[in-house]
């Protein structure tokens, strides 16, 4: 019995610390980064005033802290606003929708490995809430639930712009889910494992998927890793862009396209319900980046063979290498969030048919071909030369055929008659 209580206590501690003290604060922080970074890109200043208001207490000067308190002020403002429910909405679904967008994003946190195991008094604990053996599948299945939130928000608002936003979002998310799932199959094939902790451990030992420069041995030769780099890079590209579409971020933020749909699916929402959508969007972005980093960029690994040494570091019985790895993971995460923001303020929004075409005609086929390419490369050491040759030729023929079909099926614009 004490054993069970101890286990539950550890799980609760992990949930509280990793979800509510590591991931959730990243949401306001990424909002802050979004505003400051976009301001700097556009030659502006951005929010740099809100800090500790010492002048209210009679002191001479305020601490501005670069405006880092701004997200708290924003949140407070949204709390204090009137929570208005229009008379024409379908109440139950209208109330449910915001929660349905936030909760899946936060649930997916539980399979992300934040660092290498920490050990205190001989008790080793992994820095992951649930060490599931089906990590990426769990993330996809839960994260795709958030489409319900957006769809229900659009439908239950009972007004046309939110409805169109909701429908667009459904179509977009379902289309990109396919590319998302197919694109990481090469990665899973390469590692032969679905456990994210194991995947990261392998990357720490034998080089990141996109940076395989260390840890060569008989099973992981430099040549084989270099060969696999190509399908990995294609997978990375498709996966990243699909994550952009999945999280409704800028080049693909058609569900809330302001110029066409007022506010999109959250037009009718106010106060904290709106804030939930906002949080859900940013939480999805954080989780998406975490997944990309975990699968392709080495997760918590520092790289260049330093991880084993870092894991050894200890003061007495306390092995704190995991905390350093946690810091490394957070650095990578914030770096990738900054990349998300950079993309948002660089790339203009896609047209809806372009988005659908990109998803179904380009990424779906590319991901599918990439699976076979990766399979060929992974299996090559066990195969005879002739079989490899035949496989490669077949792959080239299939690729050419797919490109040809895509080209032929492309609708040619009708020539205007004079």
């Amino acid at each position, binding site marked *: 019995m004490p054993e069970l209580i101890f286990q539950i206590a550890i799980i609760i501690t992990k949930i509280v610390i990793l979800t509510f003290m590591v991931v959730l604060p990243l949401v306001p922080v990424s909002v802050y980064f979004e505003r400051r970074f976009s301001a*700097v*890109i556009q*030659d502006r*200043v951005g929010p740099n005033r809100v800090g500790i208001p010492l002048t209210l207490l009679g002191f001479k000067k305020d601490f501005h802290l670069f405006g880092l308190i701004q997200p708290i002020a924003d949140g407070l403002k949204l709390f204090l606003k009137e929570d208005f429910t229009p008379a024409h909405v379908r109440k139950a679904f209208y109330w449910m929708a915001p929660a349905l967008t936030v909760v899946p994003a936060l649930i997916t946190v539980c399979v992300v490995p934040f660092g290498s195991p920490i050990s205190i008094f001989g008790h080793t604990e992994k820095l992951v809430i649930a060490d599931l053996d089906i990590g990426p599948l769990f993330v996809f299945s839960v994260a795709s639930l958030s489409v319900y939130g957006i769809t229900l928000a659009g439908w239950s608002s009972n007004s046309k712009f939110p409805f169109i936003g909701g429908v667009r979002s459904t179509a977009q998310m379902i289309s990109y889910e396919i590319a998302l799932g197919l694109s990481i199959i090469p990665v899973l094939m390469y590692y032969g494992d679905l456990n994210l902790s194991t995947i990261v451990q392998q990357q720490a030992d034998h080089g990141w998927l996109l940076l395989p420069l260390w840890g060569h041995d008989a099973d992981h030769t430099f040549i084989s890793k270099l060969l696999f780099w190509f399908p990995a890079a294609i997978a990375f590209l498709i996966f990243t862009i699909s994550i952009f579409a999945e999280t409704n971020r800028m080049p693909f933020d058609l569900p809330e396209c302001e110029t066409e749909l007022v506010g999109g699916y959250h037009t009718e929402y106010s106060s904290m319900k709106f804030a939930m959508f906002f949080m859900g969007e940013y939480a999805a972005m954080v989780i998406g980046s975490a997944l990309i980093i975990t699968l392709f960029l080495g997760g918590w690994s520092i790289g260049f063979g330093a991880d084993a040494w870092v894991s050894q570091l200890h003061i007495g019985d306390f092995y704190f290498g995991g905390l350093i790895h946690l810091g490394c993971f957070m650095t990578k995460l914030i770096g990738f969030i900054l990349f998300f923001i950079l993309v948002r303020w*660089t790339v203009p929004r896609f047209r809806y048919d372009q988005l659908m075409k990109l998803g179904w005609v380009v990424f779906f086929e590319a991901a599918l071909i990439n699976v076979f390419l990766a399979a060929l490369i992974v299996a090559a050491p066990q195969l005879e030369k002739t079989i490899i040759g035949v496989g490669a030729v077949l792959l080239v023929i299939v690729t050419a055929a797919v490109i040809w079909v895509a080209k032929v099926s492309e609708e040619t*614009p009708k020539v*205007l008659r004079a």
Partner: protein
Amino acid sequence: MAVVKLQRPKLNFGEKIYFGALIKGFFLTMTHAVKSLRGKSVGADELASSGLGVTMQFPEQRWDEHLPEYYRGAPTLVTDEQGRERCVSCQLCEFICPPKAIKIVPSEIPSDDPWVKVEKRPLEFEIDMIRCIYCGMCEEVCPEQAIYLRKDYLITGLKRADMVHDKKKLYEIGGTRAGLVNKWNELK
């Protein structure tokens, strides 16, 4: 009208694949970001930027020296070189004021006053700065050249009553205008 046939531009392979333009875009935005962090954005000098982008940060930095000659700030009343108030309360400004911001209570100048021949002066002269739209019509219409738009732009108050400028306040902001002022020339 003749129908003009427009041909969509033919895109080459590089343009179709879109990635070149993306990379170019990243470079563009990052150049802007780096430049504005270093305070070297285009136009940062002539806009007197605070060192971040091209923005001047208000309470610490003021644009007072950068105000143009023709800037229209708060409307004020002026006295002449003898300390006499110029306004003769003809009420033309009150009538022309588009948002009806001006309120004048005229009064007679008593017979023992040295300026008795002027006949009238305002007993009360109020400009409601909440209503004022800084159009400058009062300045234009004034036959005595008594009302001028000055460069004051920070008109603030905690109550509505604070925002109504009375006669005392108007003369305080306006000050003195010496000599014959021809308001249509450059000197204003």
